[in-house]
């Protein structure tokens, strides 16, 4: 009660608004009561209020919400872009665990054992998902620090959430957990206040007080519903961070995590799926690798994107090593580099070149697979994609880059001598359009889901494309940038983490050596 008053005094705006809103209602009530009193109907109507309470009580007793309904109150969380597939399926485990939590009462928050137990059993389930081992062994790689970090982060997030849903409540640390019952008490206090107020106008209500007390159960029920909701939210949050932990991103401690990922997670949630907001996150650099068979047109594509002669293109296999080009895109602070690679499948290729290609592809945040439309021999492209997918299967903590297909040499499709863009290949009418359409169809058949989208292009500078084909490509690349950023971020994090660990080991060894030298 005191808390509520304090809150109201702190916020006079609300008081004024409340007053202005409710003034007409109060007026009507008063006038109505006076009118009823004068007509003499008051005595017959006064029973309506306690009767309603009685009905409410009966309904709440016999019409309990099901568990599933209750857990619907909480929306499934927006999943961060950088989550790998394994993380996404882990979230389903969290959700079903959360939904299975039965009604809890206020005491849960004052009993730390309860929620630590719940977090632990959830963590066990997740561990077996991540390590695919027996549950008992699975907890092994998790440290106490990490569990604490999880709880800490979950509570931090809970703060924002409860403030959004229950204004006036403050829980920012575990210490504040015990305050949660207080919030619910306010609900009870509020209804008491309303009853008292109504008694002023309705002295006869005093008689109905026992029934009101009984209907107080309704308020309690409401209260325990709130508690359960908050608790379920807590479990969901904890699950979120457990996933982060098992994926290894939390290992370096929660502070670093917050720094590196916090803004991205936050931004994703905040933006509610609107990716353009992500571009506002501090500038990142991402790299786009251009791969394909020799003479597919990779270097030509670089020149095409950069609108100039930057890479050597030739009818002979020309590119011998990976070349990096800066690729500025309009209204974006993101630095993009294009990696032009030597083509694979060249019979004269050196071992170093092959290694270079692989390195280039595996360090890319977006992959453009350049495919010559006029060469149906695409086994080596299939192999390359398989290699790429295998790498990311073996490193499930990393997010795989998206692969886009750039189909070149479409000018040489039949009819060979015709080149009069624009070609509307999506709904083909002419022979050329049909050729392009069927080529893309064939690629789809061959590569399936491994390639997200295709752009057919002619990259020969002498034969210009229509503007819309160029725009198509730029648009496609731009739309993939935020995904690419997420890939880059996760990779950078792991690189950093690995590096840090190495440095620590080196330091420790150095210390040891120094130590032993001094001893001698």
């Amino acid at each position, binding site marked *: 009660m005191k808390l509520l008053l304090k809150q109201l005094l702190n916020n006079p705006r609300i008081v004024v608004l409340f007053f202005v809103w409710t003034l007409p209602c109060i007026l009507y009530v008063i006038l109505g009561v006076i009118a009823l009193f004068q007509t003499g109907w008051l005595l017959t109507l006064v029973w309506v209020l306690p009767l309603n309470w009685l009905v409410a009580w009966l309904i709440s007793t016999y019409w309990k919400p099901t568990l599933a309904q209750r857990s619907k109150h909480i929306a499934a969380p927006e999943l961060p872009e950088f989550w790998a597939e394994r993380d996404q399926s882990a979230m389903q485990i969290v959700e079903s665990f959360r939904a299975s939590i039965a009604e809890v009462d206020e005491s849960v928050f004052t009993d730390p054992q309860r929620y630590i137990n719940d977090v632990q059993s959830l963590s066990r389930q997740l561990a077996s998902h991540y390590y695919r081992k027996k549950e008992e062994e699975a907890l092994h790689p998790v440290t106490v620090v990490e569990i604490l970090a999880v709880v800490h982060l979950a509570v931090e997030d809970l703060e924002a959430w409860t403030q959004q849903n229950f204004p006036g409540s403050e829980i920012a640390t575990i210490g504040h957990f015990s305050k949660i019952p207080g919030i619910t008490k306010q609900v009870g206090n509020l209804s008491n206040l309303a009853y008292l107020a109504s008694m002023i106008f309705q002295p006869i209500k005093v008689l109905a007080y026992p029934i009101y007390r009984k209907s107080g159960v309704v308020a309690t029920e409401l209260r325990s519903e709130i508690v359960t909701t908050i608790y379920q939210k807590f479990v969901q949050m904890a699950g979120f961070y457990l996933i982060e932990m098992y994926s290894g991103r939390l290992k370096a401690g929660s502070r670093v995590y917050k720094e590196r990922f916090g803004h991205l997670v936050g931004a994703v949630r905040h933006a509610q799926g609107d990716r353009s907001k992500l571009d506002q996150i501090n500038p990142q650099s991402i790299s786009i690798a251009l791969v394909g068979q020799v003479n597919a047109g990779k270097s030509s594509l670089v020149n095409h994107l950069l609108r100039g002669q930057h890479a050597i293109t030739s009818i002979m296999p020309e590119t011998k090593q990976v070349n990096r080009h800066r690729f500025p895109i309009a209204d974006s602070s993101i630095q993009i580099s294009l990696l032009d690679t030597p083509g694979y499948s060249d019979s*004269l290729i050196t071992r170093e070149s092959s290694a270079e290609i692989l390195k280039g592809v595996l360090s890319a945040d977006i992959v453009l697979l350049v495919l010559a439309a*006029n060469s149906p021999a695409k086994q080596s492209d299939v192999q390359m994609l398989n290699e790429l997918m295998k790498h990311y299967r073996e490193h499930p903590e990393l997010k795989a880059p998206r692969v886009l297909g750039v189909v070149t040499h479409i000018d040489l499709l039949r009819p060979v001598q015709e080149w009069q863009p624009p070609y509307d290949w999506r709904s083909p009418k002419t022979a050329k359009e049909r050729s392009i359409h069927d080529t893309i169809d064939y690629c789809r058949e061959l590569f399936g889901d491994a390639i997200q989208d295709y752009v057919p292009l002619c990259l020969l500078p002498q034969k210009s494309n229509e503007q819309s084909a160029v725009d198509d490509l730029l648009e496609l690349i731009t739309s993939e940038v935020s995904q690419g950023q997420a890939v880059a971020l996760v990779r950078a994090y792991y690189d950093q983490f690995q590096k840090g660990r190495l440095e620590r080991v080196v330091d420790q060894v150095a210390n040891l050596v120094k130590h032993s030298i001094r001893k001698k």
Partner: protein
Amino acid sequence: MFGIFNQKKIAGEQANAAESDDDLKKKMELIRNRAPVPTLWLFGKTGSGKSSIVQRLTGSDEAKIGQGFRPETKFSRRYDFPNGEEPLLRFLDTRGIGEAHYDPTEDIDSFHSSSHLVLVTVRLVDHALDSLVGPLRQIRRDAPDRPVLLVLTCLHEASPEQDLSAGSELVAESSAPIHGQDEIDESLQQLIDLKRKQFEGLFDRVALIDFTHESDGFSNSGFGEKNLKRLILEMLPAAYRQTWAAAMSTQLEGKSELQRRAHWQILASSALAATASAVPIPWVNMPVVLAIQTRMIRKIACIYDQQMTSKHWFALSNVAGTQVAVRMASRELLKFIPFVGIAASIAGAFAFTFALGKVADWYFSVQAQGKTPSDEELRTIFADQLARGHKLWETPSK
């Protein structure tokens, strides 16, 4: 040139043969196996133009040609041309190296022993060749003596601005610069040199072609064909050159589909007849040659959609200028034995069968139009074609 045999003897032999179709079939099989059928193994990546070559050389639509973006040849196969009974040429069309989900080792094993010449097809601008070079090295190692012709295709892709096919064919002798046209793009020479390097030690000679489809609007959709045929002829083992030369001698451009089919049938039957008469076993060849000729005439009639009646047999055998022996044999195969004139020499057998086929071809095509040619006309044609047949079968000079 061709002797006329003792009629009695022949009749006796024929009767014997007629008594047993099975026996004849066995003999035919023997001849077929001995026939020097030039066998070309087409080896190259999918879309490199293997099927296009088969189609260009035979004019047949059997080999399905792709649109260029999807592998069209679904199975590797042996392709006997014009048919399996009288094979004239044989192509081993490999499905396509570098095609996704295809492992060529099995095909390589099965084609390895039965070919006389390997045609490696490569698009001139295609440098993604590691899937091709590996197996080729193996093939070369297994049979170092079998010649390999490197066929560089799709020249137009290398010179987008110039229609090469408007000029004369390009010739690339081993390691010498290309010649043939006054003005040759420098990059073309570079590309060919690069191909020589990429296939170093794996081929004997080089052919340059562009068989892009007519509808694509190039001046010549058979650019380099003449040179290709010549190279194949020169590279085939001597025993197979004759058949090849005969098969490639006639220009079929402008002929109707029926005429083409008849022509190939005549050539194939004539070549088989020549083989039969080369068999040193006395009297084996005789009924077999007759059977081949009879079958040829039946097939030509069939091509022109004509019923074989004794009237036709009579007209044709009469024209051949031989002592007519229309003999009503009891067996289906030798029901009519029209000709008694049989060549003593191999070339004679070829020429005689060829001339006979040509006469039948003309006869039935005229019949199909509802007219009946005169004996006089038929006789003139027979004489002309006989001479032509002899020329065709002359040993081609190397």
